[in-house]
């Protein structure tokens, strides 16, 4: 394009194709620079007045660049077009080099390390001089003429690292996005040499403490690592979960992880019970009260018969002190204890162990819920949904080709839905449409609540029927009818809700899922509530001189077994049969979706049953553990064979938070309320169990505290605690008020943070405008220089080649004046 004149060119920029012009990002000598380089170049050109060959810019439109500061030269597509020199400067901008240049990373971490050591807020701004102000990076900009090379910066970083403690140094190194080899070099260079140890010892006790603390931290860290790797080797399901994640993604994986969590909770509950209640009673079996019925197979379903007089149920446990050295004092005198025997009060053990186990479960639940919430909630996470979807939604765990294709489809659908939603939000819906939508929503909710009410009435009526017709010992199978009805309603209800939900149309698909979960949960909890009333309210009355606790325990056992059978049926019919049916009859290619919400609610329901029943049947958690183990393998097999991942977008972390919160709030809280009522208000039966002579179960504790009061002054703090902290209600009010205050303060802090984020965003966009302004100015400087040089060159050439045919070309060039 450009004619090369016949004199020596001092070419500062190579006139090659544009792609080669930008500095290669892995050109490690491309350290970030400030405007210092530009000024150097400018002064050099002024001194040498060499010729600069630049690529000719494409013919631009009419925007004759005048002195206006905000106009930019626009290329054919409306994007601003910059010259090569400007682009080169742009490529060296700090904000662009931090993403690719090792030198920039090193200097960034150098300044971070310096901050850590000095504990100062900002690095000090040096004297600015005549250069432009630094940009947003927290660099110590060296504005004197000695520009630090990468090696020098590296040396500085190493020196700073040497000044840190070992734990801090490791932490810093871990956070650096450098390659392994470089991190190893840095680490080996920054380890303090051996000779310095002696010098450090002179610094006295403080350094000893530091070293001790560091070595403790390192040792505990290593121990933690060793434990973690050991635990992971023990975990039996690592590969199974990896396969599930690889084929179905994170959302289906969250169901199986939740199952694992429940397993942990049940184990936590079972261990104290086994140690302090079941084991002890099994070691000291009570005298048999009557003939034990023979074992038939039906016991496994009904829980009665042979199993009634076993450790399984409440009624087996004695109300006396086990291992009592003397049977009864004959003449009122104290009997001397035998050597080596420890009296063990069964009622107290029962009460306290259950209380402690529940308390530990409560604390663990609340802790894991708050941690999960903390991980999944972000300020401002509802905005920016397009960017988040594009950047964060690809699941790298997925490894199968067909699963990847499914992910592609899902993401594409999700993006299209987002765009459609965005467009519809641009055009507001008419008032009529809004009203219609609200009316349909109200109607569907009414229908669902009506269905729930109907199911509740059915359960109530059936339970009253069961009371009215007493069951003899031979027809125990009839007892299975109530659990059967409950489970049928629990199975059919969600399908009905799904059909009704097809009528309404929500804006966001995630809301649909939440609404479905809500409805199912209401159904299940209300049914359980009616059953609890049935047991504690009615059965206690009708089974006055029999063992009603055993009966309740058996009912819960039956419910659990029925629930398990129905889950199996649902898996079989809903997944396997449906897949076969849809493939053979309907000729549809897609497999049924794995219904995550429904399955998780099933798990929560089963866990609620366990918690409800643990007072009356201490071995119920063991049953639940067996059930969960079987469920894992069955669900996994069915998933692999029959299902596909759900098409709806599932934010796995949000869902985990929702699951754990549902486990805590309706489920655990309801069970705790039920248990508290049973312990505090209901009269235990007088013929069986550890509390048979008392008015309430809680009295066992009160009796013991009174005995402690009489025992002497040494343990008087315990009754004091009991009287003033447990029985008095004032401390509870105080703690609740404190909690409310803390929650309110945290809400205000979050509000303040949102405001600060808005202000900072405004500031950053102002800075961005500044940057564009400066870039345009820069561009203009280069253009003017080029034009003046071309003008000078064309003048000379026109003098040299007067009359030649090069005139028109150069006159065109001359005509393009500033």
């Amino acid at each position: 394009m450009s004619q090369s004149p016949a004199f020596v060119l001092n070419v500062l920029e190579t006139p090659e194709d544009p792609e080669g012009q930008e500095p290669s990002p892995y050109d490690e000598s491309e350290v970030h620079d400030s405007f210092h380089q530009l000024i150097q170049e400018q002064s050099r050109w002024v001194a040498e007045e060499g010729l600069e060959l630049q690529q000719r810019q494409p013919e631009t439109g009419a925007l004759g660049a005048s002195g206006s500061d905000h106009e930019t030269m626009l290329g054919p597509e409306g994007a601003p077009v910059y010259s090569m020199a400007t682009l080169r400067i742009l490529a060296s901008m700090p904000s662009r080099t931090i993403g690719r240049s090792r030198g920039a990373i090193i200097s960034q971490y150098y300044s971070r390390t310096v901050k850590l050591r000095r504990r100062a807020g900002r690095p000090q701004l040096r004297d600015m001089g005549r250069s432009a102000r630094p940009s947003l990076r927290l660099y110590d900009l060296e504005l004197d003429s000695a520009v630090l090379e990468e090696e020098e910066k590296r040396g500085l970083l190493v020196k700073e690292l040497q000044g840190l403690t070992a734990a801090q140094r490791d932490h810093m190194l871990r956070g650096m996005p450098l390659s392994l080899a470089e991190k190893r070099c840095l680490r080996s260079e920054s380890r303090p040499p051996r000779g310095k140890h002696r010098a450090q010892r002179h610094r006295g006790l403080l350094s000893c403490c530091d070293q001790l603390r560091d070595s403790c931290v390192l040792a505990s860290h290593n121990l933690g690592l060793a434990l973690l790797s050991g635990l992971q080797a023990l975990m039996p399901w690592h590969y199974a979960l990896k396969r599930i994640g690889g084929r179905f993604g994170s959302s289906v994986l969250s169901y199986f992880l939740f199952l694992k969590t429940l397993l942990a909770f049940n184990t936590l509950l079972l261990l104290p019970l086994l140690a302090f209640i079941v084991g002890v009673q099994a070691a000291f079996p009570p005298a048999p009260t009557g003939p034990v019925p023979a074992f038939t197979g039906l016991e496994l379903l009904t829980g009665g018969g042979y199993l009634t007089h076993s450790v399984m149920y409440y009624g087996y446990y004695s109300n006396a002190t086990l291992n009592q050295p003397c049977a009864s004092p004959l003449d009122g005198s104290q009997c001397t204890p035998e050597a080596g025997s420890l009296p063990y009060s069964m009622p107290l053990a029962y009460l306290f162990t259950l209380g402690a186990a529940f308390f530990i479960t409560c604390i663990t639940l609340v802790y894991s819920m708050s941690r999960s919430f903390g991980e999944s909630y972000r300020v401002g996470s509802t905005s920016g949904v397009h960017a988040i979807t594009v950047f964060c939604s690809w699941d790298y765990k997925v490894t199968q080709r067909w699963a990847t294709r499914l992910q592609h489809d899902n993401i594409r659908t999700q993006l299209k839905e987002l765009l459609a939603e965005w467009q519809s939000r641009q055009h507001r819906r008419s008032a009529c449409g809004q009203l219609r939508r609200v009316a349909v929503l109200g109607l569907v909710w009414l229908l669902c609540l009506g269905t729930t009410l109907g199911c509740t009435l059915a359960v109530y009526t059936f339970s009253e029927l069961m009371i009215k017709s007493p069951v003899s010992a031979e027809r125990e199978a009839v007892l299975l009818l109530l659990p059967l009805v409950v489970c049928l309603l629990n199975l059919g209800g969600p399908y009905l809700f799904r059909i009704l939900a097809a009528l309404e149309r929500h804006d966001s698909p995630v809301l649909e899922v939440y609404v479905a979960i809500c409805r199912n949960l209401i159904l299940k909890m209300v049914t359980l509530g009616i059953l609890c009333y049935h047991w504690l309210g009615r059965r206690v009355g009708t089974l006055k001189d029999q063992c009603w606790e055993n009966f309740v325990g058996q009912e819960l056992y039956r419910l659990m077994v029925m629930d398990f059978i129905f889950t199996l049926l649902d898996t079989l019919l809903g997944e396997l049969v449906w897949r076969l049916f849809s493939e053979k009859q309907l000729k549809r290619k897609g497999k049924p979706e794995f219904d995550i919400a429904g399955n998780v609610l099933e798990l929560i329901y089963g866990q609620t049953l366990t918690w409800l029943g643990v007072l009356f049947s201490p071995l119920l958690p063991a049953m639940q553990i067996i059930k969960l183990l079987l469920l894992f393998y069955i669900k996994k097999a069915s998933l692999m064979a029959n299902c596909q991942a759900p098409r709806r977008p599932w934010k796995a972390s949000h869902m985990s938070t929702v699951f754990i919160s549902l486990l805590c709030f309706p489920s655990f809280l309801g069970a705790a309320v039920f248990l508290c009522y049973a312990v505090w208000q209901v009269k235990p039966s007088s013929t069986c169990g550890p509390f048979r002579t008392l008015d309430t179960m809680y009295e066992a504790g009160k009796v013991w505290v009174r005995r402690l009061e009489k025992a002497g002054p040494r343990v008087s703090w315990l009754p004091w605690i009991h009287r003033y902290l447990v029985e008095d209600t004032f401390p509870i009010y105080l703690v609740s008020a404190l909690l409310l205050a803390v929650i309110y303060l945290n809400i205000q802090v979050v509000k303040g943070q949102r405001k600060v984020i808005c202000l900072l965003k405004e500031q950053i966009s102002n800075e961005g405008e500044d940057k564009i302004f400066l870039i345009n100015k820069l561009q203009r400087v280069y253009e003017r220089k080029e034009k003046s040089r071309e003008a000078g060159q064309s003048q000379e050439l026109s003098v040299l080649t007067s009359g030649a045919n090069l005139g028109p070309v150069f006159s065109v060039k001359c005509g393009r004046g500033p």
Partner: protein
Amino acid sequence: MGGSGSRLSKELLAEYQGSTLTGSLPSARAHRRFCELLPQEHRSVEESLQARVSLEQILSLPELKANPFKERICKVFSTSPSRDSLSFEDFLDLLSVFSDTATPDIKSHYAFRIFDFDDDGTLNREDLSQLVNCLTGESEDTRLSASEMKQLIDNILEESDIDRDGTINLSEFQHVISRSPDFASSFKIVL
């Protein structure tokens, strides 16, 4: 699988674990898998630490085979001058960034480099459109239409380009990532 000759020595393992953050990064397992990619005669410990595996072989790993970003991942972690082969340390780097224990900072840094298709330090419109095409699928009929693509990229820039310069740099990218709690768990490759 390797006999005793190709097992990493304990010191080397400890060295790797210390730098790469955690005992849960199975360096021994990674070494085994790496050795499987080498030809039979080069599988001793000393050779495997120096050898380089070509890109095609790394791309044949089952964990990477179906990933649409597999070429970019290998390019980003490769330290050879022509960026077409990976050494064992590069491989370990890759695994450590994609492991459970890398900080979200490191993950977002490398994610940025993977998405920066033209390696210029920012995500401009071409980068973003290439990214969306990778996400939606390879064939022509799975791509978004031109108007949808333009609208989507406009929305993305509107949401994440805070300084309004038309590109997304590393800080803005990390800001977007920090708002998504799922990123750390989805940016994971399990060996």
